[in-house]
């Protein structure tokens, strides 16, 4: 469980943009996985199975709540500044020079904002590919999508991210 705790939570957090909700969905995922371990079919990679359950939980939630384009400034339910702070995406610290850190934080924040604007399907694909390092084939198995669709989603997602980041610079 420790091995998947951070990757799974990170994916869910970036999908739903609400820390408490991401934690609920991560908890739901692990409970499903651990209680349903007998239904795991070893011909699939374990990581594909567990990420599939997590992604389905996030997509189901987004469909129910239409939370597909959210702010980095906190959950949509957050009203007060305290709530917005408490639910906002917290970027990690890295050991860098002050200038690097500022640039890196700016790019990190910009890319998080850009990811938040992607369609949920694109977001899952791009996060699994470039944050979790899944192959195209693993993503296709995890999301139960044809390989060609996965490639298309990832290329479109990267193009959209570039577009958002270039708009920001102009």
């Amino acid at each position, binding site marked *: 469980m420790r091995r998947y705790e951070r990757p799974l939570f*990170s994916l869910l957090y970036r999908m739903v943009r609400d820390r408490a909700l991401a934690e609920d969905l991560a*908890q739901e995922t692990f409970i499903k996985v651990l*209680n349903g371990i007998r239904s795991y079919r070893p011909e699939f990679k374990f990581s594909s199975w567990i990420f599939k359950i997590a992604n389905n939980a996030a997509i189901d939630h987004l469909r129910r709540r239409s939370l597909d384009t959210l702010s980095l400034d906190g959950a949509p339910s957050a009203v007060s500044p305290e709530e917005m702070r408490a639910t906002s995406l917290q*970027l990690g610290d890295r050991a860098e020079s002050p200038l690097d850190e500022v640039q890196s934080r700016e790019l990190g924040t910009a890319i998080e904002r850009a990811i938040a604007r992607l369609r949920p399907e694109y977001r899952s694909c791009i996060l699994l590919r470039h944050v979790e390092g899944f192959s195209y084939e693993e993503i296709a198995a995890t999301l139960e999508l044809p390989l060609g669709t996965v490639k298309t989603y990832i*290329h479109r997602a990267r193009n959209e991210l570039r577009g958002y980041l270039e708009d920001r610079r102009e």
Partner: protein
Amino acid sequence: MTNLLMHLTTDEIELWAQGLLPAARAMHLADCSLCRVEADRERKIILALVQLPRFAPAAGFANRVMAHVKIPTPSGDWTA
């Protein structure tokens, strides 16, 4: 044999950004400014994505999960 003048595909650009494109194809970038610009832009996005931090759930997360997990007893029953 792959034509050196052929532009890189999006798959090849991704491979190049990860340092995995065979040298024979990577040589195309030296002569093609179009592909070079495209590859540089793609590499920046991929690097930014790869460097995104991982987040951790709140302390005690594993305990909260395990409180809901059914554990088989020696008699074959399941207990939470």
